[in-house]
């Protein structure tokens, strides 16, 4: 069995905030075309990990490889240039701006011809249409795309952030608890969306506390614990309760049956 191609890899990431060590030598591997779930207790360092991968924070130590080449993301712009899109847990949205604007923030569509190339005018109509389409895909009943995001319900707001990340990625999609605030129907739509993204060939990193979701969709499960990677599990082999045991520390990584580990 040939080793699958690694799209993203991190070795020994360390991130300290004052006295708190959020990441304590974390490793990470993402394979081409897979859905990798990242799970772990609250404060295990999941968000800190993906923030390093997406350029939102710069790790204190450790290195990150993209397609085998070392990269140093100083800002989210660097990661974005590399085709990585991330939906953050604390929803990076501009509350006073409209849904359509938030969806296209930093990726605005310009008009054709003179108006777009010289005047650099936005194609608002097109953006509205696309936004409408994307939100419909997620079955979110939002009436107007020109509504300010701050007027949305918690779940609706989350849908905006998820739709944005999924829409623009060229290389890797990272979703930090995308379904946390979503209803059953909307949550399923997001899972559906994730699958569609994977089917386009993009690997997805999915952070979630929702075990049924994780087991439904993940190809491999990365378990974060105390700022490190405790294990990488194969959801087809291991049971949900064993997974939770590893996650909470009730089961030591050494005790995991070898065939449950993902390889």
């Amino acid at each position: 069995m040939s080793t699958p191609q690694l799209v993203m890899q991190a070795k020994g990431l360390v991130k300290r905030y004052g006295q708190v060590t959020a990441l304590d030598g974390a490793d990470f591997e993402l394979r081409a075309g897979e859905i990798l779930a990242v799970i772990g207790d609250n404060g295990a360092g999941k968000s800190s990990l993906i923030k390093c991968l997406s350029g939102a924070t710069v790790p204190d130590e450790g290195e990150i490889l993209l397609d085998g080449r070392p990269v140093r993301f100083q800002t989210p712009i660097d990661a974005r240039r590399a085709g990585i899109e991330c939906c953050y847990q604390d929803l990076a949205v501009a509350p006073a701006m409209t849904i359509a604007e938030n969806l296209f923030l930093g990726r605005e569509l310009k008009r054709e011809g003179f108006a777009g190339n010289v005047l650099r005018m936005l194609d608002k109509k097109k953006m509205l249409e696309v936004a409408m389409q994307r939100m419909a895909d997620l079955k979110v009943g939002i009436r107007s795309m020109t509504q300010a995001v701050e007027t949305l319900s918690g779940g609706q707001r989350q849908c905006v952030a998820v739709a944005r990340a999924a829409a623009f990625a060229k290389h890797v999609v990272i979703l930090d608890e995308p379904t946390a605030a979503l209803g059953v129907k909307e949550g399923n739509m997001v899972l559906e969306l994730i699958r569609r993204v994977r089917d386009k060939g993009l690997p997805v990193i999915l952070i979630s506390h929702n075990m049924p979701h994780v087991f439904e969709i993940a190809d491999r499960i990365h378990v974060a614990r105390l700022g490190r990677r405790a294990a990488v599990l194969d959801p087809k082999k291991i049971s949900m309760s064993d997974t939770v045991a590893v996650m909470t520390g009730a089961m030591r990584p050494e005790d995991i049956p070898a065939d449950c580990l993902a390889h």
Partner: protein
Amino acid sequence: MDNWKQNLPPIGQLGPFIALLLACSFFGATADNFFSAENFSLILQQVMVVGVIAIGQTLIILTAGIDLSCGVVMALGNIVMTKFAVELGLPAPLAIACGIGVTALFGLINGLLVTRIKLPPFIVTLGTFNIAFAITQLYSKSQTVTDVPPLMTALGETFQIGGTSIAWGTLLMIAMYVGMWWWLRDTAAGRHVYAVGNSPEATRLVGIPTERVLLGVYVLAGVFYGIASLLTVARTGVGDPNAGQTENLDAITAVVLGGTSLFGGRGVILGTLIGAIVVGVLRNGLTLMGVDSVYQVLVTGILVILAVTVDQLSRKGGR
């Protein structure tokens, strides 16, 4: 289905507009000679300098900043362009470019301090206020510069439309407001200005170079201050080192009266134009009413509060 909503004037403009209408009807009723095309043309000429400064100020306030240095930077530009033309004998267009260059440089300095060292804009521009002020006084020896070339005062000239004389500078100001309004509304760069002010962290995280946006805004504001320098020369016909010392408060007042939030990210630049006109109308109207100067101050205080109250109440009604 979204269209009719978009075409409604945003609440942010309606409020100041109502305040303006009320102010006008008040003075129309109490002061003679207030309602005349000539008088309105005059008011527009009087607000043109503050109005253009307030364009730059609006941009900065939209990014949740504030610029105290605007007026004195304008004065420095004014002295540089007139002295370069009169004393160094530079051709007028070049001298004007130099003046605008200096104000843009100050914008750049403000911007660099705000973005690179992450200093609060209030303190940065308080510092550059002092610096620009001192340089202006030192360079001009506090002396007015006279005999400026006619090209520099061209914007102060008027032309007639239906018997009313309108200054070219007024037209320029309005054109710039409309241009910036369009730019802020219809280009990606403009939307990024709002985004940076509304939520700098979110804007950074989606991969917008927030520092570059901020820096651009400060430099652009500096350019507007430079244009305001030229307008001051055009209006007074001289280079005046003592111009601009109270324009910062006036400009901020215009911005806030115009409904832009000092916390950034919310507001419409056309509101600032109305805010600036409200300030001009107050000053003009009170003089026409023959109110004594101390009482003018008193009444200005009351009317400013009334104007925002009207604005605020009309917003509540509008929701």
